[in-house]
């Protein structure tokens, strides 16, 4: 039984973990991975203490600091949270973990299409990171799904690597910048598949094809592809805690100034909450608040400020 389990290993979760471990709480972080949003940011200029730092370097430093404080980090995906008396039980694919308090800090995750075959073939042709996995598809046929700047950027990038690129978008116009659209159009090997949505991915070991449906005519077409990059933005995933905490109309977890949710013993911090500024420093600050309030909750302290520093050395 942990004193606290933190879901998420981004700035909010790692910061919360630093605070709870330093308070002597038995702490565990469970996360699918380390903040995709931060690690994929090339340069960060607004995190105090660093004039400039690469996203992945900042996360590595936070991870190291959290581990040094004594926290355990497990890379799994939490699928279910249940109450057991005053405690919580978290279920992942293979394991179960119990805790007295819970901090939700799972941030934003790349949005998926939620169509048949997608989950099974992720990492087997389907990818959400074109800069990571794109180069593996040299001279292959790929699809890019989406209509914003990130999709246009991905299509342009893949046009220089792959033999052919299908750019699949559900509307007939793109949401991205005009200059980006022009850039994509210059590539002869990009074929636009507009007014179309992907309805299924097929393949046994690896992705072999995908089926698109025209949104107007409802006509279906199968495209043979080796790879598919899904670039349709990011979202907060809060479905697994909806039965426990209040969620706003944008799916964000509602919190008060103390990072408390509507449920006693459950706190939340960072991009998963309804806090307006989605910034690394804000997430880290909120993580600290959530951690300290989780400590106070266990010890029955009502929002009293406790000294967390020592005089002298």
């Amino acid at each position, binding site marked *: 039984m942990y004193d606290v389990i933190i879901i998420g290993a981004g700035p909010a979760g790692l910061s919360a973990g630093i605070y709870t471990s330093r308070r002597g709480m038995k702490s565990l972080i469970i996360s699918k*991975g*380390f903040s995709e949003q931060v*690690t*994929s940011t090339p340069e960060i200029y607004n995190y105090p203490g660093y004039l400039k730092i*690469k*996203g*992945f*370097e900042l*996360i*590595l430093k936070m*991870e190291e600091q959290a581990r040094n404080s004594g926290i355990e*980090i*497990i*890379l799994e995906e939490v699928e279910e949270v249940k109450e057991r008396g005053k405690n919580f039980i978290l279920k992942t694919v293979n394991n179960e973990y119990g805790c007295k308090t819970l901090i939700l800090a799972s941030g934003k995750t790349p949005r998926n299409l939620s169509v048949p075959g997608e989950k099974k073939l992720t*990492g*087997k*042709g389907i*990818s959400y*990171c074109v*800069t*990571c*996995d*794109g*180069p*593996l598809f*040299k001279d292959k046929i790929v699809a890019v799904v989406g209509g914003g700047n990130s999709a246009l950027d991905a299509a342009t990038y893949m046009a220089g690597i792959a033999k052919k690129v299908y750019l699949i978008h559900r509307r007939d116009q793109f949401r991205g910048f005009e200059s980006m659209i022009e850039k994509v159009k210059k590539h002869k090997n990009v074929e636009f598949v507009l007014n179309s949505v992907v309805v299924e991915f097929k393949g046994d*070991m*690896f992705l072999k094809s995908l089926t698109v449906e025209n949104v107007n005519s409802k006509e279906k077409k199968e495209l043979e592809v080796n*790879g598919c990059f899904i670039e349709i933005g990011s979202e907060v995933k809060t479905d697994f805690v909806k039965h426990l905490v209040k969620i706003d109309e944008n799916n964000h977890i509602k919190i008060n100034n103390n990072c408390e949710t509507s449920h006693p013993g459950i706190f939340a911090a960072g991009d998963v909450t309804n806090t307006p500024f989605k910034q690394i420093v804000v997430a880290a600050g909120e993580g600290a608040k959530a951690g300290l309030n989780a400590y106070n909750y266990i010890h029955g302290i009502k929002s009293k400020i406790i000294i967390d520093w020592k005089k002298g050395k």
Partner: protein
Amino acid sequence: MVVKVYSTPTCPYCNMVKDFLKKNNIEFEEIDVSTNHTAAHEMIEKSGQMGVPVTDINGKIIVGYNVPALKEALEKK
């Protein structure tokens, strides 16, 4: 001990794996699968998937930046 890291130059999680190995003074061979296509095939065959990074520690395959798994594989030898 033979350690190979299959990666692409632009992938942040690859950098995190390489950084982890360097910090622990583990010598490794870095294989850029964006230019070496034979190696890309080898990586896909070994790991049964197409995402980077893939780390091969004495034949034990670890996909992604997963410190507990990397440590476990490194401690075996």
